[in-house]
């Protein structure tokens, strides 16, 4: 039995009607915008329902739609190997309080990816085992992939000017 976008949408809508805030189809990919509270039940259902079997959480990534509310969006790409089908989940997070439930306890593959999204966008994943920066240095101030993060030239630190550069850093007076 091959999965179709319409079939998957219908299955999910009958089960999680209220949790699905919107759906879209672009270039053949089905994308569902979810209420944050519905994320974990939908993700587990996608993986474990016998007729769906989206056993691989391919990718988790964040996008900053600056100037729009909810400003942030976390995008999950699920793959069903059995049925050769993709489905995309999207969850929005507000600028003032960007919180999203973490999938990392149930999907270990999301662990590093959620840490990267936290590192780059400052989205807090509630329930993550150890949410901390992964790519940027721990003492970095700000979230570099936010659209309002200023693009500046960083002076290269050598032994002779290291202290002078350090004194100008945002964390210097802390």
């Amino acid at each position, binding site marked *: 039995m091959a999965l179709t976008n319409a079939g998957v949408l219908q299955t999910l809508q009958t089960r999680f009607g209220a949790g699905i805030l919107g759906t879209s189809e*672009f*270039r053949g*990919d089905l*994308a569902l915008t979810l209420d944050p509270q519905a994320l974990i039940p939908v993700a*587990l259902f996608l*993986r*474990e*329902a*016998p007729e*769906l*079997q*989206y*056993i*691989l*959480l*391919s*990718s988790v*990534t964040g*996008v*900053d*739609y600056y100037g729009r509310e909810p400003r942030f969006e976390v*995008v999950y*790409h699920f*793959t069903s*190997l*059995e*049925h*050769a089908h*993709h489905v*995309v989940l999207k969850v929005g997070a507000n600028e003032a309080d960007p919180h999203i439930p973490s999938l*990392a306890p*149930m*999907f*270990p*593959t999301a*662990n*590093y*990816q959620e*840490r*990267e999204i936290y590192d*780059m966008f400052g989205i807090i994943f509630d329930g993550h*085992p*150890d949410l*901390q*920066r*992964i*790519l*940027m*240095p721990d003492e970095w101030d700000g979230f*570099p*992939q936010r659209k309002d993060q200023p*693009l500046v030239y960083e002076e290269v630190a050598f032994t002779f000017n290291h202290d002078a550069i350090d004194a100008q850093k945002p964390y210097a007076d802390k």
Partner: protein
Amino acid sequence: MAIAEPKPQISLLPVAATPARSGAFPSGQAIAAAASEMEVPSPRQIVAANKRRIQNDPTGEGSMVLNMGPHHPSTHGVLRLAVELAGETVLQLAPEVGFLHTGIEKTMESKSYQKAVVLTDRTDYLGPMINNLSYALAVEKLLDCEIPPRAQVARVLFSELTRLNSYLVWLGTHALDLAAMSVFLYCFREREYLLDIFELVSGARMMTSYIRPGGLAYDLPAEFKPTVQRFLDIMPSHIDEYEALLTENPIWKERTIGVGKISAADALAVGLTGANLRATGVAYDVRKLFPYSGYENYDFKLVTGTQGDTYDRYLVRMAEMRESVKIAQQALNNLPDGPYATSDRKIWPPSKEEITYSMESLIHHFKLWTEGFKPPVGDAYVAVESGRGELGCYVVSDGSNKPWRVHFRAPSFINLQGLPHMAKGQIFSDLIAMIASLDPVLGEVDR
């Protein structure tokens, strides 16, 4: 010395049997069970666990934390591992990454679509053409544009040559880590030939930027076919040579069989893809399941292993090298003539001759080189099979001439999460074999 006929211990599934077969993949419940017992610790957690263990053990000999890397020859780049050891046994470990982070995804947001291609080379620097392809396919999905057959076939051909290039470096460094020096030298000898081919078509040995949204950067040169043919003629005998040195080698088998074992359910829970996943017996290859660039037209086998250990990963990659040669040969035989890029003038600039007599062409040329094209608003995710696994490219367009967001689903980054699970309870010296067989490229991990 006569070269022994290699005996593959792995299953070669025929083409017809590969699409969805019931029971071939672990069920969602099995993966959920595996995931509930799996940990992906961070270095901070390792240090905390070590402190707890020392406090509970008055002799203070319970365990120690060893920092391996970031400058260690066997970590394949600037990878640091915080390893908690009890004697020589690994209790747990945590990879620490980010030393090579250069903000490639952020930089791409400030370049026009066509100019951002050069940055894709620099993520996985052993597979530049496949990176180019993943980005090109994602942008083309946004644009919804047709690619002429010559470019399609050339893309498949270069994907396979790049895969060979990346596997040769994997094999050479893997063997070198386990003290087989000559394999390393042989692999780099053949890799040199491949880099010459890349230089012939693109002018650059490593940072090729050859596959671009819309087609190829330039047409293939006249001497391309015979050069690649010479390489494809000699390559199978070289693969025999590597296999004669390693496959039945007792030391090699001792160091790899049963080392770094991972089950199919665990591998899927932690997101392993590529040869690392196929070695556990899961028949997932993006080229078969979601064919792109016409992969459905090529006759090749999907190679799977059974044990999921380092030796099986080795066997799977060796068999895939032979399959890659086969695909490249089919592509070279069927390379059609014709245009090498799309004829859509809103995406690809016209030729020089056209500009001399057509005003529209001149305008198109000017607009494309100053401003670039503008895909419609939307987002697209495209996965391709790179040398390391499922390389996904996610591009968001806001309708302007620059991508709003580009993200790479970097297989090295995600595969690295499997290392703590593989290494648990194993001997420290086997950790070296595991890192090499996972085959991370730190440029791609950190982007």
